[in-house]
């Protein structure tokens, strides 16, 4: 899949998840943030050539669709975890600097934001696992091997290890929410950079 199509799909997945979250958690502040993010992504991707990769017509379609669907839902969940984590950092800064205006009344509590990060990642990791599994099966059906250690596959595995590691630390290590949130932001940025590298280099 081209980078263009990837980001474009991600935009739609984000908007979908955002709508679910908005109605489920009643977060006022999420709206503008999510719309802005999707808009930026949309504009950003329009600067790339719209190259449609020629899909092989005799590919086992359903496995590929599963692979794409699960992967994308997981990317959406991780992106929103990243958004929640960023909101946490912003809100914490406001509280620490005591520079709270009306904005702070629209922000969810630190506890709620940290919980949101965890929930998004816990949804994202199983979805990514399914996505990787479907991808491997598809690869085996098409090329005869499960894993070829191409950069993109390594990227998926790195993402899986990172977010899985975050979940493990959250549940087992007794880390503070503050540390976990910074880990999440740092790791997510690495994942994004890694992906850009995979796509563009």
């Amino acid at each position, binding site marked *: 899949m081209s980078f263009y199509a990837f980001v474009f799909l991600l935009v739609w997945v984000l908007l979908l998840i955002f709508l679910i979250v908005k109605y489920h958690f009643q977060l006022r502040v999420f709206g503008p943030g999510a719309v802005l993010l999707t808009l930026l992504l949309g504009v950003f991707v329009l600067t790339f050539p719209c190259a449609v990769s020629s899909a092989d017509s005799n590919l086992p379609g359903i496995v590929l669709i599963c692979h794409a669907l699960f992967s994308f839902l997981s990317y959406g969940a991780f992106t929103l975890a990243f958004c929640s984590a960023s909101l946490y950092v912003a809100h914490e800064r406001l509280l*620490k600097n005591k520079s709270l205006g009306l904005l702070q009344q629209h922000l969810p509590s630190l506890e709620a934001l940290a919980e949101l990060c965890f929930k998004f990642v816990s949804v994202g990791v199983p979805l990514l696992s399914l996505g990787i599994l479907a991808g491997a099966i598809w690869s085996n059906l098409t090329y005869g091997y499960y894993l070829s250690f191409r950069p993109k596959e390594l990227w998926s595995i790195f993402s899986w290890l990172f977010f899985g590691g975050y979940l493990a630390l959250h549940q087992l290590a007794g880390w503070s929410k503050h540390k976990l949130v910074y880990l999440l932001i740092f790791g997510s940025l690495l994942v994004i950079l890694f992906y850009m590298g995979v796509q563009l280099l």
Partner: protein
Amino acid sequence: MQQLSLLGINHKTAPIELREKVYIPETRLSVTLAGIKKLPKINECLILSTCNRTEVYLTTTNQGQATEQLISFLVKLSGLGKNGLRGCFYKNEGLAVVDQIMRVAAGIDSMIVGEGQVLKQVKDAFQIAQKSKATGALLNTVFNRAISAGKRARAETDISRGAVSVSSTAVALARNIFEDLSHHQIMIIGAGKMSELAAKQLISCGIKSTLVSNRTFTKAQELAVQFAGTAVRFDDLEKHLAQVDIVISSTGAPHFLLKQEAVAKIMARRFGRPIFFIDIAVPRDIDPKVGELEDVFLYDIDDLGKLVEVNKRERAKEIPKVEKIIFEEKERLMKWYNSRLERGGLR
């Protein structure tokens, strides 16, 4: 023809010493309403009496006479001489009356702009007047529209957002850190009016449990009874700080009770759970450097005061939006009024 009329006294025209003389408690409202309704030329009547204002809304066919009677009625009620309340009353008629009650209901006539209490007081006053059969078609419609304006002002603008007292600011801050206060413990160190208020407000928000500590243990025990909490010894303070999540401190200690190193040690035992210190004491109880620690949030009395000021300013900025709502509600009222006039009602 029946005219709307208003006679009132409020925090802008009279100090508390005079306002309290004409304050009419809820239990006396229906008797007073009946007394006013007996006066000649007065058709409908409604009394709104709160700590900041006593206002009498009327419909009358003779404004001048009605007002004169009412003033002497209220002067008699106050027990002050004829000149005791001179210059305290304000009068309105026609649309200005509608404007006033809408401003009151919307909270922009209050001492604390946007306060929520007044809308409930307006509703109660209206209900009592209706029950006492003191109101008729005109006042009923005016008050229904005013209550609707009050509700809209709070729902559609930020006029009542943001804490505007020190204790409610402390609660609002706690809510910024913790999602559900019923999962968290609070500790009160020292006794003082301000910390009591803040503690009471947090407790009324459903805080899980309360610990009370004071240098004299018996005093702590007294306070603990008051807050339905547990008294703990002053020497065990640091042990308990590892458990509680919100601390309100207001001792008379001349030096810092909690220094950065001590709190850093406590934080290590809390496994990353954040803690919120509210230091209301002057001189301060908690070293300001404590606030630099990770997962520690420290607010002193000045910080809280500044937030109150910020929120008050933010509320003031919303007043034009509320005035627009009032304008719209007045238009709707006028439409109703004119159609009633055409049909020959309201005589």
